């Protein structure tokens, strides 16, 4: 294993597992600053996790194995996804490969586990949130797969490591395909991270919740796992945005050096949109994601036209 490969592996593991909570923490911190508040420190999510980890969980009456296993399945599938998403173009295989479509499947599995737990406990708010999440997920997943398809076509493979290499430099940007894929992926990032205008992560109103709804029935370590999974989702989609869909260097050392900078900038962008943009009507969210899918389809068409 070369030196950069070792650094890439370390960055991937430490970043995806341990530093992921810092990303939503940074967004919250800057959001508060942008709103003229002092706000919590960026380390607040760690404090939350420590607090929750120290608490015992209370099970819902009548809850069975689905409810019990859901947090572990949700967090576990995201953890595998962390192993799968490389941070640079020479990251070694960590035993799960690098296939982009597997990533889409893992994200869906995590979502399914949470929705299934809501189904089992049949709490009204949890089910409402889960059903809204599933409705929107149909469009998010389509947009995600199509956006990944654009990058895969440009790079000529669905292997994420080679996609990073294939979309690097300026040659990949000679046509409009990757730009359209990036546009689609931007909207996927917003939806996957549960941020405005698709969802409001700060809401306390049960009636408006999407991602928060199914979490209402969890406490203690279960909730800690789910919160970590939500933070790790930030890591996954922001790393993909930085290393595949945004212009990046071909040299893995430069990729690694710039990654923290790009992640921080992207968190700032999320904080800015969440301050300036209101949450959209829930029935318009599929339309927004439909635009993402359409942009990705256009990207595919653009690539086909270019290729012929």
């Amino acid at each position, binding site marked *: 294993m070369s030196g950069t490969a070792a650094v890439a592996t370390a960055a991937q593991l430490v970043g995806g597992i341990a530093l992921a909570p810092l990303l939503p923490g940074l967004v919250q911190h800057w959001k508060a600053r942008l709103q003229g508040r002092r706000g919590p420190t960026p380390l607040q999510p760690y404090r939350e996790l420590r607090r929750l980890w120290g608490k015992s969980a209370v099970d819902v009456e009548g809850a069975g194995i689905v409810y019990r296993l859901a947090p572990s399945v949700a967090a576990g599938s995201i953890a595998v996804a962390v192993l799968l998403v490389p941070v640079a173009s020479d990251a070694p295989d960590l035993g799960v490969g690098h296939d982009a479509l597997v990533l889409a499947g893992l994200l869906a599995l995590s979502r399914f586990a949470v929705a299934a737990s809501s189904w089992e406990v049949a709490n009204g708010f949890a089910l409402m949130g889960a059903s809204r999440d599933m409705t929107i997920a149909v469009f998010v997943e389509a947009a995600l797969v199509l956006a990944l398809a654009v990058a895969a076509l440009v790079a000529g493979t669905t292997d994420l490591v080679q996609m990073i290499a294939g979309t690097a430099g300026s040659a990949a940007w000679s046509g409009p395909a990757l730009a359209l894929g990036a546009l689609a992926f931007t909207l996927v990032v917003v939806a996957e991270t549960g941020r405005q205008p698709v969802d409001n992560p700060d809401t306390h109103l049960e*009636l408006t919740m999407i991602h928060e709804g199914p979490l209402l029935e969890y406490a203690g370590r279960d909730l800690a796992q789910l919160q970590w999974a939500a933070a790790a989702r930030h890591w996954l989609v922001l790393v993909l945005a930085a290393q595949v869909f945004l212009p990046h260097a071909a040299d893995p050392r430069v990729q690694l050096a710039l990654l923290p900078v790009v992640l921080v900038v992207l968190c700032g962008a999320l904080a800015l949109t969440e301050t300036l943009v209101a949450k959209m009507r829930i029935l318009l969210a599929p339309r927004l994601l439909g635009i993402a899918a359409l942009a990705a389809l256009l990207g595919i068409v653009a690539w086909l036209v270019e290729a012929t």
Partner: protein
Amino acid sequence: MTLHDARGYRDAVESALADGCRFAGLHASAGGAVVHAALLDPDGTMRLESVRTEESTAPTLVDVAPAANWDEREAHDLYGVRFDGHEPLRPLVDHDLALSHWTVPMRGDDAYQVVVGPIHAGVIESGHFRFHVVGDRILHLDARLFYKHRGLERAAEGHTLAEGARYVGRACAACSVANGLAYAHACEESLGLESPSELARARTLLLELERVWSHLNDIAAVCAGVGLAAGNNLFAALTERARRLNADLTGHRFLFGGVAVGGSSLDLDAHAVGDAREELEAIGREAARGWRELQFSASFQDRLPNIGVVSRDDVDRLGTVGPSARAAGVAIDVRSVSPLLDYAGFECRLPDRPDGDVRARLEQRALELEQSIEVALPLLDGPVRPVAAAPGAAESTIGVGLVESARGATLCVVERDADRLRRVRLRTGSYANWPSVAYAATDNLLPDFPLINKSFELCYACADR
């Protein structure tokens, strides 16, 4: 006040309504022996039509004035008066009865209930909302309030009229001046006191200061309801400035104790009014700037139209009052017919598109905020001195006061024995408008309800008393 028999009462109310009067309130008195209905003439005079109950039964008004629905249910729960023809007479204040008594039965495929409250996951007053929904679509909303029913009206009985002001003033922090003023006007009418122009000026000033912070707060609440942090912060900061101004002028951020029966103790020297003028102008400028920016926030504007609609007809039927009625294009405002206050030449403004939806109600608030500041600034032209009401008019044992609060017409009826309260009834703008909120929710999406609710921004405490 005219005391009728059952037949004459219905006839009197029907003919008043035919004359263009609006139903303004109904309450039981004398331990349930009498029921008073208040009707507001378009020229601002108030008619009280009363009926003596027979075997604790009075004829209902809900068929001719649906706005009497809550009032009759309250009179039944608190005074045991039955209303002949009011079927089903659901409980309002009485929480002991089973669910089936107060909810509307709902049958059909896929209809289910979503229940929220009375304890909410935020700093929100106590109210229980039972949504009947199919998917995310609301079929019907049963709201159960009165968790904050403190029996203030009953507690005030037997106290002097002056002490009664404290009970009424504490009904609600957000409407302390409006409620207190309606009470003071009712007492003064009963005592035969007249308001000199200086008293009218001091009271109008307080009422408009209350409206200013209240409307600023409500605009912030709508921004918060759609997650628009920038708008929420700007207007929340302005709300805070307005409350600090209140504290500077009266010693209380919510203007508590500013209104007393028979006079005003508000004492502001030239320096204080000058500072207040400047600050109020600055608040108005900042609010106008913030409002203009909200016009250009597409994501915000996109949330507002066509939800929570209360049309003109609904306003007339449900007895909606205040900004919510005006947002539907119904030009009713007690301020335009308030001879006891300093509103000479006041004309209420209506939004360009009076659609009665969330957008129109928000726009109405912005219009009224601007107008309130315009009304308040000239009142700060010179020092304000303590002043007493002057005797001169005829006395009576019953008095009525009607004041436009930030949420709508607030009625207070006072009955007295010498200087002791025999009965006091406070019917606030919030009380009048709660049924409209439940109505407006119908056919909308569940996730839009918090926004619809915030576009009315009614008080719970004011309604519960």
